């Protein structure tokens, strides 16, 4: 495998930290500790990435592959990503604590512009047996799948090669009118994507 460049690592931090915010809010909305724990794991992953990046960017500067200014810019943007990841962990921490969630929390998250939704894929749904890439759910329904549960296995930030099978639970985010479409597709009442 090709060695990751500093730029690759920055992108990974960016994508991961944004996924973490989504996961953290949905863990609170669905009172789901498993998702909250994943946010913790991702936070560790981001910390490791950030440390690797620090070393990598110094190396690249030393080898003359990157200018000092560029390396600094990369480090600064990654630092912001790391802080976003920390904040997501703080949100997940509320879910993991042994205190019952205040009902207002769920209501506030539910009422915001971007909704989170959780749907179960029924056996006769058109989604079964297709990959996210084939379905183009994000561009067809506006709903982006951020996590899914497949039997007892969880997939976080699924990509275009991830296949949906019956009984999967999808966690997705998107606009209000996209939510209905996704629910209908998953429970088989609609076959039109």
């Amino acid at each position: 495998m090709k060695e990751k460049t500093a730029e690759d690592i920055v992108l990974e931090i960016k994508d991961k930290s944004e996924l973490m915010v989504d996961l953290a809010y949905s863990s609170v909305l669905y009172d789901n500790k498993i998702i909250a724990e994943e946010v913790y794991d991702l936070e560790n992953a981001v910390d490791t990435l950030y440390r690797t990046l620090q070393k990598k960017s110094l190396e690249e500067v030393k080898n003359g592959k990157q200018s000092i200014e560029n390396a600094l810019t990369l480090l600064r943007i990654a630092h912001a990503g790391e802080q976003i990841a920390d904040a997501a962990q703080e949100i997940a921490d509320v879910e993991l604590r042994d205190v019952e969630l205040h009902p207002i929390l769920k209501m506030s998250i539910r009422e915001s512009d971007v909704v989170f939704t959780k749907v179960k894929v029924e056996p006769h749904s058109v989604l079964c047996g297709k990959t996210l890439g084939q379905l183009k759910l994000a561009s067809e329904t506006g709903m982006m799948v951020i996590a899914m549960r497949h039997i007892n296995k969880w997939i976080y930030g699924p990509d275009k090669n991830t296949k949906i099978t019956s009984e999967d639970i999808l966690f997705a985010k998107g606009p209000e009118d996209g939510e209905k479409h996704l629910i209908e597709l998953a429970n088989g009442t609609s076959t039109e994507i």
Partner: protein
Amino acid sequence: MKKRKSIFGKLQRTPKWKKEEFTEIEYEPKTVKELLTEMKDISELIIDLAYSAILLDNIEIAEEVKYLEVRMDKLNYEIRMISMMAARTKDDAEKLAGILQIAEAAESISNAAGDIANLLTLKSKTGPILPKLLSKAEEKIFRIKVIDKSKACNQKIGDLKIESETGIRIIAIRRGECWIYNPQSDTTIQADDWLITRGTDDGYQEINKFLKGEVKILE
């Protein structure tokens, strides 16, 4: 349809963060729920805006990020005050602590976004490394101009169902000298608007054709 939020979807001029910073905090009887919903919305919008500012090398969007950051400070202060007044028992306090922690986290996110937008002023001399970098991210930021022969003109965003048909989310609209941030479903699209959007390549292809008038409907 959702109630329109007062600070979003308005035609406005930047900067206004300074004005916000110097106004005294007056105690307005808002609910914890309203405050937290707004904070969550801002925490998501502000990240997109910060990256857009960098990608498009646009100082005005960076100013809006700054404004939202200041606004977030105030919301966080207000939510603390209200929560304290609401707590009567230990049980109340425990549950409200969770709300304050999430509010605090939303504020940290906006601070991080502010740091991202600040990179614009510290731009490196060697050229646009960040725009190049961000154009490789999974979900990208696109800027699209609305052509007058497009069917989108004079239509409401909610009626066009742009996001649910294409997965493209409109972060901001530039109309002449003015900006509309986080347009709501009742915001109308006009000819010559520039839309700042976020989404996948597939979705971009679709909406671009629509806004250029090459296809008549989104499906």
